[in-house]
């Protein structure tokens, strides 16, 4: 009776593998949860501790303070000021530039490689764009700081060499491969039968791509954009190096800017543990965490809804 024995053994192996996979999935969730707890715990004194609240509380973080400088981030001055609005504005404006720069380029490239380019050209373009994803962000930041900044300054005629446009474009370079890869997958997986039906009706390849393939791939394309957006918001090294790092409350893209993530990276190393400044930095951290989490949840929900609409289950 050899058979049953091997059967049970393979069953056992299958069970073990299944258990292992389940455990690793859960460990990711547990890890995420622990990170949230840890950062949240360090941020909490902003709301609860009287000592900390004297220096930094929600209203000082978000509301205008004195007349001359209503919003300033000066955590190490004699009277520390902890307004985080300039950092929010900085993050948002650089993210905006990055997204406006990267998404059209990435989607255009994806549309080109999936619909129009001959096979050999796609085999050439795709790996190159994906290689861009492999460049460490410190290298991209260095490039933006040393090389690109001068050209950007000249091109746009900007006073400051390091500014939000420069950082945004550098950030865009990091966003392009993500958006491209996911969007190209979404476009390529649109069934050939749709293209055939469209061409057989006398549509041109352009009409087919724009009116049939693109809408069919829309859920995936939106997911690509959200991933790119998330990457832009969280990216630290590039903005730290290329933005000039001045916490200015201004939507002017030509001025230097400072992001939430770069602030944490630059200041957490030297802050006095347990000080108001320390807790504010953690508060920024948890804000970023919650923001990206909510953004992802919303995007997930929205994409699923769109998918249902395209596939006709609602």
């Amino acid at each position, binding site marked *: 009776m050899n058979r049953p024995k091997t059967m049970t053994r393979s069953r056992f192996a299958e069970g073990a593998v299944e258990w292992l996979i389940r455990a690793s999935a859960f460990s990711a969730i547990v890890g995420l949860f622990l990170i949230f707890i840890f950062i949240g715990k360090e941020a909490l004194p902003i709301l609860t501790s009287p000592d900390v609240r004297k220096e930094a509380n929600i209203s000082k973080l978000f509301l205008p303070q004195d007349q001359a400088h209503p919003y300033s981030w000066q955590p190490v001055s004699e009277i520390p000021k902890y307004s985080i609005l300039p950092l929010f504005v900085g993050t948002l404006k650089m993210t905006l530039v990055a997204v406006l720069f990267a998404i059209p380029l990435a989607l255009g490239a994806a549309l080109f490689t999936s619909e129009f380019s001959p096979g050999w050209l796609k085999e050439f373009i795709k790996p190159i764009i994906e290689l861009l994803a492999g460049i460490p962000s410190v290298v991209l930041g260095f490039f933006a700081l040393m090389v690109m900044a001068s050209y950007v300054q000249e091109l746009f005629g900007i006073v400051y060499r390091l500014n939000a446009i420069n950082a945004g474009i550098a950030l865009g370079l990091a966003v392009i491969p993500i958006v491209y890869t996911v969007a190209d997958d979404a476009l390529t997986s649109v069934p050939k039968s749709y293209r055939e039906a469209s061409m*057989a009706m006398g549509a041109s390849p352009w009409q087919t791509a724009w009116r049939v393939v693109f809408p069919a791939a829309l859920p995936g394309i939106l997911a690509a954009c959200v991933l790119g957006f998330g990457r832009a918001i969280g990216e630290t090294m590039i903005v730290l190096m290329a933005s000039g790092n001045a916490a200015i409350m201004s939507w002017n893209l030509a001025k230097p800017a400072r992001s939430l993530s770069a602030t944490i990276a630059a200041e957490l190393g030297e802050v006095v543990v347990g000080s108001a400044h320390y807790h504010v930095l953690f508060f920024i951290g948890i804000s970023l965490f919650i923001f990206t989490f909510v953004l992802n949840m919303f995007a997930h929900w929205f994409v699923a809804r769109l998918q249902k609409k*395209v596939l*006709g289950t609602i």
Partner: protein
Amino acid sequence: MSISSLEARELNLYYGNFHALKNVTVRIAEHAITSIIGPSGCGKSTLLRVFNRMNDLIATVRVTGQVLMHGRDIYSRQLDTASLRKRVGMVFQRPNPFPLSIFENVAYGPKIHALVEKHELAELVANSLKKTGLWEQLKDKLNDSALSLPPEQQQRLCISRLLATEPEVLLMDEPCSALDPIATAKIEELMLELKDKYTIVIVTHNMQQAARISDFTAFMLLGELLEFDSTSAIFTNPQHPKTQDYVTGRFG
């Protein structure tokens, strides 16, 4: 024989080195149903796709001979494929409505060919759905996704989508093979209604179907058009022994 709408003369088609259609000469009668039968791989779909030049999309394809529509060569330089395909529509084996709303599916052809003004579009869509008998069932859910429909209605929708561009010829490549018998019967009924206004060419593996609905039948074997005649002649008095064998089910 009645007036011919489409005609192929000494047509040869090659996929690279593979000779897929050999010296095919055939005349497709106007306002009639012509079926193309034959064993798998004999070139039925290839012949069908010659008439709307869908084979052009395959890089390796080479065509010699003539294909005429009302006496004009459809492979000539002057003729653009977009206007040809508007006049010669195609229904595929698997229903393939676009992943858009029912309305947008039917409006697709008129939009890309700029056939009507915007305010006339709704009426055109309604008329096209009426021609296939879908209007009553679908008029209240035109904004639903076309993919939410059952297969038979999807196939009808694909036919409506073609009728919206007012074609002359409908090419159908095994349009019922993904449908159940009841749905098949309904589509056949529709085809019989449509043949008053349209010329229909259908590829089918279903011998009964060819016998039931078509006026003319072409039998193909290994890239050759072996026999072409009225359907009754093909099924009751075939000239070629191979045709006899095939229609009586001895091979295929």
